[in-house]
């Protein structure tokens, strides 16, 4: 099924090819003698799990990094790409996963910064409007970036590349911020580009999308190119196994208990937005039951941060009776007090929010245990007790550590996430709230974390999982609700709803339907 990288010799030279590209950061080999090629008019996927080296590779191509060894060829000629400016001059456009936009500047100004000097703002605005009509990418040149939705911002990024007439367009994980409908729109635009002769390099780890959009895929694993395959002829499982290098076991879900006791009831959670960049929460109500995983699906930026803050206690609603846990009103309690009544929280960002990178794991254990009695006596920390807790978590949740009580920063992303999730699960909380539990985590760790969450639910706790990864949502959730622009849909059993329906809700259609009814 897999072919080793074949030499290209056909009539037209590849738009871009790389031979033996190597890049190391200290001891870590991000790219190891990677070779690659892409033809004009081809939509080619770059596949691999987190940490496999995809981002590094495209940064080498775009000139943001310089290779230690190897050579890049453009249109068949060897080139040295010294920086993004030169990459753009050659005809390479790049849309980053984390947009490189300037929030307080306008669309036109943002685009102007990516283009060579000489064009004034007015002329550029006209060109933007023309291009926007041609491809159906609705953009207002005078709008400020901070006022645009994420999907619109991405269109600005794409437009920015288009206006330089690239021969190669690179997109780094573009669909992680889009609804399924917006994804379809993007794909049709990309297919148009390809028909016009542009080559598209599409980085993703979403196998369904890759098989829908691309013709060939190059798989990176641990910095090496392990093969270029024909995407139409491989199943998801085959691609996944190529990415991981071994057989993967599925997470099997157990069915939810029939009669379920309510553990946590949220009623009329309402939060006005404090700044222009935040989202208002609009009278959200839902119930999390014992033994169930309730997934709150939705694109980032629709109120997830606000709900997390309300549930963890970092923000407390001004009125009473909004958040009940086992019948007790916890609305007014802070995070430390909430932990005492059996709440466990895992925030989305493990670096600086869920854990402190510069502190040891035992101190990170203290972070969510200090109000629970064992670790602090009369204001004085019991160092031995914190170490015991950390050691237990490390042992039970298979956290790979380089030394006895290491700094959190020395753990890999997956292992730190296992620690941070395990730190809460080990307390058997009545309610576990977790956001993006497997973001940026390798497949093995992701499976392990999802298994722990299911086991916790099976033991009778309630779990609320906020996730923008639909694959994950459908893998382990018993119930699903969708968050859009601060409004929550009804809670639906996972078995009764399809990904397409969820996608529509994520895009806000339900609200529109109600409005027009």
């Amino acid at each position: 099924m897999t072919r080793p990288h074949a030499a290209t010799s056909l009539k037209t030279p590849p738009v871009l090819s790389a031979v033996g590209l190597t890049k190391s950061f200290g001891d870590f080999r991000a790219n190891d003698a990677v070779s690659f090629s892409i033809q004009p008019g081809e939509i080619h996927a770059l596949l691999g799990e987190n940490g496999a080296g995809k981002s590094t590779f495209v940064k080498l191509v775009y000139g943001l990094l310089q290779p230690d060894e190897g050579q890049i060829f453009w249109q068949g000629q060897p080139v040295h790409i010294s920086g993004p400016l030169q990459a753009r001059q050659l005809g390479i456009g790049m849309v980053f996963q984390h947009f490189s936009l300037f929030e307080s500047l306008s669309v036109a100004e943002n685009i102007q910064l990516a283009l060579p000097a000489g064009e004034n703002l007015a002329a550029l605005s006209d060109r933007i409007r023309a291009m926007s009509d041609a491809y159906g990418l609705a953009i207002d040149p005078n709008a400020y970036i901070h006022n645009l939705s994420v999907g619109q911002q991405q269109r600005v990024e794409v437009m920015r590349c288009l206006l330089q007439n690239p021969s190669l367009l690179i997109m780094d994980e573009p669909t992680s911020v889009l609804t399924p409908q917006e994804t379809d729109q993007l794909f049709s635009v990309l297919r148009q580009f390809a028909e016009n002769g542009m080559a598209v390099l599409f980085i993703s780890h979403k196998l369904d999308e890759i098989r829908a959009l691309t013709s060939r895929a190059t798989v990176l694993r641990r910095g090496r190119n392990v093969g270029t395959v024909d995407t139409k002829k491989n199943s998801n499982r085959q691609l996944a196994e190529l990415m991981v290098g071994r057989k993967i076991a599925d997470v099997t879900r157990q069915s939810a208990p029939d009669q379920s006791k309510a553990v946590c009831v949220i009623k009329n959670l309402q939060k006005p937005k404090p700044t222009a960049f935040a989202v208002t929460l609009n009278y959200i109500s839902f119930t999390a039951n014992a033994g169930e995983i309730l997934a709150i699906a939705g694109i980032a930026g629709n109120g997830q941060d606000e709900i997390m803050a309300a549930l963890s206690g970092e923000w407390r609603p001004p009125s009473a009776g909004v958040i009940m846990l086992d019948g007790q009103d916890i609305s007014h309690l802070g995070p430390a007090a909430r932990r005492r009544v059996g709440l466990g929280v895992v925030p989305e960002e493990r670096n600086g929010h869920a854990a402190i990178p510069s502190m040891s794991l035992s101190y990170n254990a203290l972070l969510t245990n200090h109000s629970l009695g064992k670790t602090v006596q009369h204001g004085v920390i019991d160092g031995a007790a914190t170490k015991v807790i950390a050691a237990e978590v490390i042992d039970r949740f298979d956290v790979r550590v380089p030394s006895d009580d290491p700094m959190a920063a020395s753990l890999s992303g997956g292992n730190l996430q296992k620690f941070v999730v395990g730190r809460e699960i080990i307390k058997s909380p009545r309610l576990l709230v977790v956001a993006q539990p497997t973001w940026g985590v390798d497949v093995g760790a992701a499976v392990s974390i999802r298994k722990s969450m299911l086991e916790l639910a099976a033991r009778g706790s309630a779990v609320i999982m906020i996730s923008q990864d639909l694959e994950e949502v459908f893998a382990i959730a018993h119930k699903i609700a969708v968050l859009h622009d601060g409004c929550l849909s009804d809670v639906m059993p996972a078995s009764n709803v399809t990904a397409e329906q969820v996608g529509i809700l994520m895009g806000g259609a339900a609200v529109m339907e109600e409005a027009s009814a």
Partner: protein
Amino acid sequence: MISMTPRKDISLQRTLVTPVVSIMMTLCVGAIIFAVLGYDPLASLYQFFIAPLSRPDQVADLFVKACPLIITATGLVFCYRANVWNIGAEGQIVMGAVCAGGVALFVPGLPDMLLMPAMILAAMVGGMAWALIPGVLKVRFNTNEILVSLMLTYVAALFIDWLVRGPWRDPQSFGFPLTKSYDEAALIQRVDVPGIGTLGQLHWGVVAALVLAFVASFVISRTLFGFQVKVMGDAPRAGAFSGFSAARTTIGVLCISGACAGVAGMVEVSANMGQLQPEVSFGYGFTAIIVAFLARLNPLGVIAAGLVIALAELGGDSAQMALGMPKVVTGVFKGILLFMLLAGETFNRFQLRISWPAFNRAPAARGR
């Protein structure tokens, strides 16, 4: 092209070596500046760092000079660890001295035994109140505490100037801006070791300073409050997640820092001057900032750092007398030292690599 990658682990060895290297570099740069300005570099360095210690009782005086620095810097450590930039210690020292002086001079009928504790309390309250102004403004209005606390140092200096020249001036001071002298009970006595006698100017304030540093070290490293301070400084989001309040932490560390600075002011006046005058802080509030950094924000390190800086201060006096160098030259040393310490911090946290473009030109293409 210098590239920096964060180090995963910071060895203890490196942590201790860096301040020493910083001091060495400071001496070198200082010597160069002296030479450029026409002073003999070696003689200058000798006057600065060796001469002040040539007699045993001078070592005791070193501790006396370090005393206000140690007390103030210990308080500043709490603030800086919490990322609260209290730059106004200079003003808090003054206000502490003023409040203690108020008690000493104008509270009638206090029995001698209670006078000193009352003065200490007043000094703490005075310093705390002055530090709480930027604190409250930061917590309620999100105002930048650096500029507010700094502005208040100028205000405090003008305030004490007015007091001492105006309503609090001793009518018998022949027009000099001085208050009445404190009573005996309001003064801090020299330490009298039975059998040895007094050691230079060593007074009980020094003992208090050392005790304070040890207590602070315990609080920072072993208590939940100390953990809170460190967490809120390093990762405020994690602190909020853990249940710590940013507002309470800010107010707390400013109270500690203000109280320490206030006490330092009171100690300086009661141990060395015996009365209030327009200048009671002598820049200690700013010098303490450097002491805190030299100590790498560690309360125990504050003792050693305080002694090093005190040496430089004494050296400034000695260089002025022996070589005619203006007193302000210690400011040059302090500034350079702070630069070197900050650079050392970078070398600690990052691995620096200098890469030349030549190495990055790709060699001839190699096959897979």
